[in-house]
């Protein structure tokens, strides 16, 4: 498809969104069902339903303000859905949030750390709070710290880190307790090229070991390379979901970016 064919008026019908194929539902680790979330008068999520199959890397795509961060916070039990429910491995995200936190590793989009602890101390604290053996855990992630090039600064105050370093520390925190599901909110936003590759290598490796990864991003070509599934959200509703092949075959477009632009196109504001 050439670029001249990109319309401005949404030629693709979002109701053509793919439904899950028969082979997947039983293996879904995350189920989101008719979720609606409003903050007073403002409705952030209108009606979101999708499932993330276990062991896969799933990308959550959407323009700014679509509701991706809200969705992640709902998964973490930080917010409570106005309607609908979210289940992770069969457990409700809000009511069973204590249990759920053992299963999820979360990286927010702008991690902030305690101003009086070093990176090492933050990791130790988190390991202890997860009930892990601190010494063994620190030994296990030492190669990860080296891989992410944090070794030199790991003993400095965490709040002095640059943005990229904070993201790396956040990723380590998320992976500390070997969770079943990694939820990453724009993990490579602001990272340099090398760090971005490091991140994706790490994500790929963890997925190969069976962890499910759900992350949001704006970089389409990375999604194409890394993810097996994608969910596209626009203005609080799901406009497309499923594996990448299904999306391509349904919309008849080769590039995910083109699919995305067509589905999320909005008329210009006057």
């Amino acid at each position: 498809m050439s670029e001249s064919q990109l319309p401005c008026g949404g030629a693709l019908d979002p109701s053509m969104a793919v439904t899950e194929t028969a082979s997947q539902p039983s293996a879904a680790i995350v189920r989101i069902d008719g979720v609606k979330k409003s903050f007073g008068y403002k409705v952030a999520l209108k009606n979101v339903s999708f499932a993330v199959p276990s062991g896969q890397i799933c990308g959550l795509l959407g323009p700014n303000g679509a509701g991706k961060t809200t969705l992640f916070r709902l998964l973490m039990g930080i917010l409570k859905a106005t309607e609908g429910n979210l289940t992770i491995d069969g457990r409700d995200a809000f009511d069973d949030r204590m249990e759920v936190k053992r299963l999820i590793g979360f990286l927010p989009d702008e991690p902030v750390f305690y101003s009086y602890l070093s990176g090492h101390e933050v990791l130790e604290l988190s390991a202890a709070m997860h009930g892990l053996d601190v010494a063994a855990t620190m030994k296990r992630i030492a190669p990860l710290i080296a891989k992410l090039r944090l070794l030199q600064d790991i003993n400095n105050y965490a709040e002095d880190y640059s943005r990229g370093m904070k993201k790396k520390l956040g990723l380590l925190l998320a992976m500390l307790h070997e969770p079943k599901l990694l939820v990453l909110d724009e993990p490579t936003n602001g990272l340099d090229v090398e760090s971005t590759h490091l991140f994706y290598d790490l994500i790929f490796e963890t997925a190969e070991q069976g962890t499910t990864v759900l992350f949001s991003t704006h970089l389409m070509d990375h999604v194409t390379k890394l993810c097996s599934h994608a969910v596209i959200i626009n203005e609080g509703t799901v406009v497309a979901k499923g594996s990448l092949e299904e999306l391509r075959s349904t919309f008849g477009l080769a590039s995910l970016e083109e699919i995305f632009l067509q589905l999320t196109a909005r008329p210009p504001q006057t």
Partner: protein
Amino acid sequence: MKSEARTGPGFWRTVWLLLRSARKRAAGRRNRQQQLLGNRSGGRATNWSGFGFVAAVFFMALINGAAAYFVSVAVENGQRFDVERQGKIVVSQNFLEVAQQALQTSPALTNRYLDLQVSTEASRIAEKYGGKPADIAARLREAVLTMQKTGAQALVTREEASPGLTALAKSGGVATMLGSVALLWWALMLVFQGEGLELDLQRRRHPMWEWLFSHPVPAGGVFLAEMLSPVAANPMYWGGPLFVIVLYWFVYDPGLALLAGVVVGIPVTVAAACLGKALEIGVILRFSPRTRGAMIGLMGWLGYASMMLFLLGLFVVDKLTGALAKILTPFALLPWPWLRLFLGGKADGTFSFTAGVLTCEWAAAVTIAAAVWLGVWGARQGLSGTFAAVDAGPAPSRIGETRFGREPLYRKEFLWFIRDRSAIVQTILIPLTVASVQVFNLRGVLSQAQGAWNYLCGTAILFGTYFLWVLGPKSLSSEGSALWIALTWPRGLESLLKAKAWLWSLISSGIVALVLIYAAFQFPAEIWKITLVGVGWFFFGRSMAEKTVTLVTVTSPSGEPEKIPWGRRAAAQLGMLTFSIGVLTQQWNIAVVGIVYSYVTAAAMWEGFRARLPYLYDPWSEKLPPPPTLLHAMVAISILVEGGAVITGIAMAVFGRDNLAVAQAIGYAVSAVAVSIGVAHFLDKRGVGLHEVWEWPAKAGTQTRHWWRGEEGGFAKLLLLLCAGAAAGLALGLFARGYSAILEQLPGIGETVRQGKAEFLKVPNLKISYAVMAVVFAPFAEEYLFRGLLFRALDREWGGWRAILGSAAFFASYHPPLAWLPVAMLGATNAWLFKKSGRLAPAVILHMVYNAVVLR
């Protein structure tokens, strides 16, 4: 490509724009709070925050007025001191006349009379200004003799010696010095007020400033707007002009004084605010994040301590100024023109209004300009400040794998405490100050108590409570935006916060224990009493820590911490003073009441907190806990008691003091009826019907093992229950009488009991009034409130025996200590009866019969 050059807004336009946006921000914040409040309560709650602000402005205005009065008294006492330095003694008019009369008549006749007068005058002077009466008496006698011999005027009246502020120009060195010191002290207090003790100092660079300075605006304008913001926010600044009005009132006409309030008061107050803010900005720009907290904490403490000193100084202003005068006498040689210049006093003794106004306005303008310049100069060094090189580098030596028990949280708190320097500063300085303030406030009460060991214990406890009061919110706000990490742990925030509370209470108990151990060494005879105090503190400290923990707030992404509602902060302090006073005055009953009150308040706060906690980040989903809550019950009970007292007072005023008993009965009766109806209506509006309080159905689905719980049986069953209640009431009543009889036999207490009974019989109509009150009104109201509301809520919160005993203890605390045992038993029995039978009626009957038996 734009062709014309665009210039940014000028200085004053920048200031105007920023102030306008600040106002909009504040309005927006208020609006959002209102929306959330409405959302939580379904639109039925009232917002009391405006009331709080008005009260704060009123209080601050009082302080400023008091400060002005302080200045005037300081000058007068200084003048007195100057006169006395010349060898004369300042006495009352009366004494002077007596002394002059003594000159006329022969010494022998008047000696005894004169001696009496001398000693009276001496003790008066000693009480007011300090010093030993014997020494003063000797000096007075000498002065009288000198007068007799040489005729020199050795005695001066107060009016002559201390003409006050109007004679400032002609006053001696000490007077002008004291006046200026007092004035500067007021200025200091105003400068260091700031925006309060909370400020998120975690950010190295202020994102807002960065954004502002990315515009072509003059830095001076930005900082001036920044400096003017505390003026709007802090009620202390609103009261500042009152200081000027009162001070000028001493010297000029009222009309001019009021004008001065506007023309001088406003610029001076604004200048003080600007200076304070400039110092803060300087600290933020130049110090590392970990030190700036400490510096700003110190500054805030200075403002607070100086304010407290003013308040307290008022009570001992004469003694205080006398002491200051003695200490500072050497400095009196230096010139101290400040007060005189402030008031517009000229060297020849007259006062010129215009001179005063012009001087002050000029000084204010210079200060504001200097403040703005200070900010601009600091910003020119770069918004990151020059500390970047200083504080980077590895964190201080790793605290190895030190394990602080099973709780990994303790290590984190410990690291915070020793690395965040503001924590140390604030948690030591502020409690010290506040505790000293309280000890001072209670000095009258303390002088009644015997022994000094309770002084020591009481001070330790006061320090401990205020330590918790500061440490709690500080520790909570130290989480800041990093609270999200805690949300990723498989451990509820509730358990984390409870662990924090436990840690704080341990720390504070440790500190208090040290002092108590020292006290035990000093006063070995009282060791068992000191131990009791320690035990009492342990429990009280725990309840206090639990209350403080509910004050946690979330920091917004822009770095602004959410303000803790003042009602919650006030509630966290309930019981504090009661407990401390109880210990200080060795009145155990008061201390125990303080502990009970504190625990029940903690339960009430946790009830609300548990409803709020899951929605800390999601205030739109938050709902108030279902009524009737513990808080409702406690407020209703307080209204019952206070309302009864008020109405009693009114009734007494109407019917005369002789009808005290009747007045009390009326007061209680009216209050009971009013509160009961009011509460029922209040609950009804929120969907809780009357029968829902009077009845306690068994949980749906549970097997009703007990035959009396089921629905069948109807009236006969009810009658049986009522008879059971009456029988129990009879039994308890007889027990109470027996208990009272035993008490009468005990040595010390017996006397009190007998006296009480005698008083009881002396008052006319007392028995009838009490009978009516106790048998007709009290049972219904008290059962409704204490069992129907309070015990129900407490059972939800604590459950089991703890709830029964807790509600009984709370009930007992509203009765005199000698009656505690039977009353507590009554309370416990009624609570148990209510829960078991599912109805309040038997408890009411029990109460009625009990009261009838006891009062017969």
